């Protein structure tokens, strides 16, 4: 790193201080550090450290998510500068995520959204009670590559299938990796409704998403 402010930004993300992270990222930009360098040298190592601390059992969910939120806060400042330079941060994929229509359970889906975002995905979280058309409008708008759906109620689970059907009708199914989750959702259910992936928890969701993105990239015909 070699830059005191960069080290401070690193520390702010590792310790999960969003406001500090945002301010420090702005200061680094003002000092003239190139945005890509801020991301690569100060921020990415920080979020990797957060992930490592979680894996080794030192960090629990709150620290993990606060780290991810601090990362997002800093990104919000740096990304416009990046675009200003005509450069683009490499993202693993663009995710549209939400809890399906009729279901107001937010927390599990939000954890997954945060984790995906911290792990290099561009995430659009539509919140709860999201209808098929809301999902698909956003997919079109941001040209999403991943659609994530959550449900906590056995009665709202079937709506996931409806969204998948609507994606097919709209001709969007093939561009999408569709992931489903939520306490009552099982791998068998995911398969039955024609989803591409399922995970038990947020860490698993990140793994599955990365895996499926890599698989899909491998399947693309080379030009």
């Amino acid at each position, binding site marked *: 790193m070699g830059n005191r402010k960069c080290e401070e930004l690193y520390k702010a993300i590792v310790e999960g201080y969003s406001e500090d992270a945002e301010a420090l990222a702005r200061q680094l930009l003002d000092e003239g550090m190139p945005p890509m360098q801020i991301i690569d040298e100060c921020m990415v190592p920080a979020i990797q450290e957060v992930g490592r601390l979680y894996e080794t*059992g030192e960090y*629990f*969910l*709150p620290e993990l998510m606060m780290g991810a939120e601090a990362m997002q806060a800093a990104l919000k400042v740096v990304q416009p500068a990046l675009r200003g330079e005509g450069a683009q941060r490499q993202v693993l994929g663009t995710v549209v995520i939400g809890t399906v*229509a009729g279901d*107001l*359970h*937010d*927390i*599990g889906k939000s*954890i997954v959204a945060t984790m995906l975002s911290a792990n290099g995905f561009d995430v659009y979280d539509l919140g709860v009670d999201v*209808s098929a*058309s809301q999902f698909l409008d956003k997919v079109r708008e941001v040209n999403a590559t991943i659609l994530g759906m959550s449900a906590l109620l*056995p*009665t709202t*689970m*079937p709506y996931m299938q*409806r969204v998948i059907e609507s994606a097919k009708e709209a001709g969007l199914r093939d561009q999408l990796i569709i992931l489903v989750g939520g*306490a*009552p959702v*099982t791998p*068998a259910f995911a398969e039955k409704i024609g989803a591409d992936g399922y995970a038990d*928890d*947020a860490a698993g969701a990140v793994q599955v998403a990365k895996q499926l993105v890599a698989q899909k990239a491998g399947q693309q015909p080379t030009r």
Partner: protein
Amino acid sequence: MPRRGLRCQRLKFLDESDLKALYFAVIETLSEMGVKMDYRPALELFADHHGAVVDWDNHVVKISEGLLRKALQTAPSFFTLYGKTEDYDVKVDLERVYTMSGSCALHVLDLDGNHRLAVREDLRLMTRLLDHMPNLDIMHQIVIPSDVDEIGYELVNFATCYTNTWRNFYSQAQTAESVRDQVRMAAVFQGSTEEVKRKPTFTEVVCMISPLKHEPQNSEVIMESARWNIPLYIEVDSLCGATTPAPIAGTLVEQAANVLAGVVLAQLVNPGTPCIFAIASGIIDMRTGAYSGGAPETTLIHAATAQLAHYFGLPFQGGTGIDAKLPDAQAGYERALQVLTNMLSGTNFIHLAYGMMEQMLLASYEQCLIDEEIIGACFRIARGFEVNDFTLSVDLLRKEGGPLGKHFLTKRETREFYRQDRWIPTLTNRDPWDKWEAAGAKSMRQYANELARKILAQAEQEPLPVTPEQAAEIEAICQEGVRKAKEIIRQREESRK
């Protein structure tokens, strides 16, 4: 008949000043922040009443202390939940303790040791099995069958459980129409819908979302149930540390504000509707994000909420599923701590007390029997013992010669006393090693398996509470209800487009 409704409040985690502080925090929350209710008829009803302020932009209703107190005055602290015969009636007050089965597991651990999706036959069999548990008071569906369509599933649950239990049935509904269908089904047994209204043999539960949110169907079902005088479990399922603040006290505040808003709604519709303050809250496991029903902090939340609910003059339902996956040591300790603590804290309904494991996703046949054993032992502890001239036994000691006497085993006093005093175990093995080994060296799980098979075989020979004709009529109403439910959902989706 087994004991019904023991009074055993002995544990208190909150003192009077804690309770007052909680009371004012709840009033502040309800009157200044309010509760989100996405159901227009409910908001319109609130808007008509002095003491409620409706924010139409955000669908939030703020409830004054005065309006809350008025509702608490009409919400009864004594009422009866009716069984199919008087023997199964449950007299509810703020002191008696009852147990409940439930709820909504997706998988079963069957008697052959298989972990698989639950089917409707499991629901029937487990309801029959549970109906033979002497310590069970209220029947709730233990599984959601995978071979039943999700839309209108509660009607199939109703038809299956209601016809297979003598006990008051703890039901749920997605719509007002579903409540009416359930009234119709109960009326087949009770003779008329008027009779159901007078002595309802089932109840409804509504589950709120934290923080401070009532889904449209929650309000719809509260209002329709109240119209029919169907008692309501107004339940909040908070996840302490995630959907409510991490301190237990903060979770108690959110839970109470959330539940009480539902109680006020029920009382506005029909003053006097029995309302039970209910929770199935748990802490979030900070490592994995999982709901933990078996955690000690979860049990503390439930024990303390019992006190707070009683402070507001409402009966309380607590208790929840445990985290173990097998009927093992973890299952035993989680269940025992949870049941005993809730009992001693005066939780009036100990919910999910039978067979519920894996964060409420798994129901075990064997664990149902083991839990009956644990509940029996816990009730024995909770019952305590009497101290009086007879039990002090000084006269007996003297009569038998004091220091010159031998033993009391063969005394008439002993024989008469122990029969009513001692808890007689069913599955617990108290033999020494050699004898236990000679009898097959069986684990408690094996004993439970054998007993479950025996009870189920016997249960299949017994008459059901309803006649075959009544069962057929109930099933017909159920199927027609499911058809209507699908139509309602279809229309709702049309209107969403």
